């Protein structure tokens, strides 16, 4: 029994991505529908271009999104919630810098009812004082707890420094901002964005035509408009910014810089390089700083892409006493990628891993819808994923070294250390 030799294996083959059907509803609202679902599940994602970058006062976008079902004089938040619950529905709200969204989950048999309750409540929201004050208390309490976490503080400071503290992507809220928030702010934002602009809909589920008709009826009440957003100049504060937290026993570290968009010629190469550096368990950073030195429970890197910008980052939490040693090793790994070619064995291994990851992320209609959303929101070519696969196969160690030299320049990095 020869246990020393690995069994033969094949590189993961690409999967043909299935795109959803596009349906034009009223007022320019687009619905993308993945109908071929084998069970009774229904998932409806409604996304507005109403992210935090659009707000003129801190926290407004966030609170508006969270309180869309806070009700009015006739139907309270509690009633609305109880009814959606009764039909086995789940409502999840989400906000990032570019979008405000709501996702409804339910089973086919009750989805019509769930959507009816949701849409009626959402279109007639008055942000009652009681619910507003309650949300403020809850959010402020959570904020105070988060503010004790080194990782949270580190992330905030990083955003401030990468984009600039006055940039829409870089602004962060403080305790005072919670206290200064007013109901009128939410109502204005709601009217302008949630009632006054058109969302985009992503539906995964084998629903009947009557549900589509209900979506169409609802879209008649919306507005065929999107708010123009002027991109603001960003100014990164490079170099080290340190926040001391004397009672912490770990230090949070974030290092990064502005990167490129998904349709940039370097993007796939940077993605592959990022994976090698810190994007999977066997990465350079993990192998060195966790598996060799034992400095941390986890370290990784990534590329975050937003509508108006993107950035590359490395993040970790390490024992306080090894803070400087960790930083030294991080820069050591960045430098190594600039000077030495990645060995063929490692490059092949990572490529194979990424192809397997791609399969995992294309598995089933829900996953495929997420892939489609990526293409739609980032205005990418329909061939994006086959281009990605081709690039992964093609990119050489030399090309990666060149990309490293371009992007991993110390003096261009923002370095945040908290703890």
């Amino acid at each position: 029994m020869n246990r020393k030799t690995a069994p033969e294996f094949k590189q993961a083959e690409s999967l043909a991505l299935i795109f959803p059907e596009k349906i034009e509803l009223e007022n320019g609202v687009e619905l993308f529908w993945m109908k071929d679902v084998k069970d009774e599940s229904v998932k409806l994602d409604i996304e507005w271009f109403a992210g935090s970058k659009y707000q003129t006062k801190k926290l407004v976008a966030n609170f508006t999104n969270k309180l869309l079902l806070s009700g009015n004089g006739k139907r309270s938040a509690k009633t609305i919630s109880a009814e959606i619950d009764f039909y086995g529905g789940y409502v999840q709200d989400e906000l990032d810098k570019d979008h405000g969204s709501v996702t409804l989950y339910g089973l086919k048999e009750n989805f019509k009812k769930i959507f009816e309750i949701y849409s009626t409540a959402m279109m007639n929201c008055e942000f009652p004082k009681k619910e507003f004050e309650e949300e403020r208390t809850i959010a402020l309490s959570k904020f105070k707890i988060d503010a004790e976490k080194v990782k949270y503080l580190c992330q905030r400071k990083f955003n401030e420094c990468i984009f600039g503290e006055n940039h829409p992507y870089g602004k962060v809220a403080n305790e005072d901002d919670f206290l200064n928030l007013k109901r009128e702010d939410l109502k204005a934002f709601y009217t302008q964005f949630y009632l006054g602009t058109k969302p985009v809909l992503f539906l995964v589920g084998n629903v009947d035509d009557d549900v589509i008709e209900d979506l169409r009826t609802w879209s008649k009440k919306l507005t065929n408009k999107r708010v123009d957003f002027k991109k603001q100049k960003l100014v990164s504060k490079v170099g080290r910014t340190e926040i001391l937290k004397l009672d912490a026993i770990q230090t949070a570290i974030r290092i990064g810089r502005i990167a490129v968009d998904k349709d940039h010629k370097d993007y796939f190469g940077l993605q592959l390089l990022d994976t090698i550096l810190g994007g999977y368990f066997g990465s350079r950073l993990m192998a060195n700083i966790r598996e060799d030195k034992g400095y941390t429970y986890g370290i990784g890197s990534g590329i975050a892409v937003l509508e108006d910008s993107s950035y590359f980052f490395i993040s970790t939490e390490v024992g306080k006493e090894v803070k400087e040693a960790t930083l030294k090793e991080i820069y050591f790994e960045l430098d190594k990628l600039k000077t030495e070619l990645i060995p063929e064995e490692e490059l092949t291994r990572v490529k194979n891993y990424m192809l397997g990851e791609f399969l995992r992320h294309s598995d089933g209609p829900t996953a495929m819808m997420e892939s489609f959303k990526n293409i739609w929101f980032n205005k990418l070519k329909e061939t994006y994923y086959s281009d990605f696969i081709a690039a992964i196969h093609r990119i050489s160690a030399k090309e990666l070294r060149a990309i490293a030299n371009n992007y991993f320049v110390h003096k261009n990095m923002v370095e945040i250390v908290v703890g």
Partner: protein
Amino acid sequence: MITFEKFKLANGLTVLFHQDKTTPIAVVNILYNVGARDESEDKTGFAHLFEHLMFGGSKNIESFDGPLQSAGGECNAFTNNDITNYYVTLPVQNLETAFWLESDRMLELAFTPKSLDVQRSVVIEEFKQRYLNQPYGDVWLLLRPLIYKTHPYKWATIGKNIEHIEQATMDNVRDFFYKFYCPDNAVIVVGGNTNFETVQNLAEKWFGDIPARGKNNRQIPEEPKQTEERELMVERDVPSDAIYMAYRMGHRMTAEHYIGDLASDILSRGKASRFHDQLISEKKLFSSVSAYITGGWEDGLFVISGNLNAGVSFETAKQEVWKELMVMADTTLDKDELTKVKNKFKTGKVFSEQSLMNRVMNIAFFEMMNQLDEINGELEKYDAVDAKDIQDFAKKTFVKTNLSTLMIKGKIKENK
């Protein structure tokens, strides 16, 4: 309906196969019958430390992760008080790679000093990151020994304290491996677009020659019934006071598990729940409060945890929580309230079963609990719960002599 086929090797390894033709990915899950409950009180945190060591190389294979990544695969594992679970996902055409890797580390670990040294440090960092350096991070390190006086559930999986992990030796580690990591103490479940014959052949080929080393026939005496109310208050550097109330209840496979689960949903799931409505909205006592069950395999807990609003005393918080629990014990449940939580459960179940990994893991858990026949009976069990069951459960469970309370007093001063 989760389907499966089962067989057993001569060395005692139980092998199950769940077919799924709709996915290109296969899952191989190995569940070992060992958890924190099998540790001795002076050597805690071992089951979890050991889980880390399982990735440090085996007898014939220097690296577990490397060859798996080359085959397009991903892996992870977790440990709790009851079990240790390992899983691999990879393209189905590379299924044999998973069998090769998992069987070699069941056969024998590499036991290198370097691996032990590094993973000791990593686990210590994990201890700090998740339990010591987070607000309210050490709650369960304090609450467990309050509830359990004799049973091994009295210590957390991460370990009672860091010193036990710091002092772990190579001999300790070797003993642990040979005692618990063997075919007759494990269940392997394969899911994906292949067939039973292929799985049988691979299992026989790779696991067949691993010797049986003895099933873990643990005989842990039950924790005696609690007969007095218990309380502990500590100070911590946190912004708000917090309270944790734990009641003893039936374990994972008792009828109480299902009743308790629905009861906890009625109390705290969603904005229309009783806790949210009364304790957060109306009385403004908490900024967050939730009820949940732990589902331990040997003993269960019904837990209520919440962060108090500024100015609210622990006495008031406790009293008001009690009021709600007594309402549940003394009044008949509204039919709609029960339908609501059952419908939410139904929806959640459908979404959860979309994941091949979830299905495979559930098969492993049910087999390990000797309840494989019950795996498709979950929905029925939840559906069978009626209003009287909830009321009886509340009457029995929510009594002072069955309660342990931990209060965290916050030391951080507010900036006014």
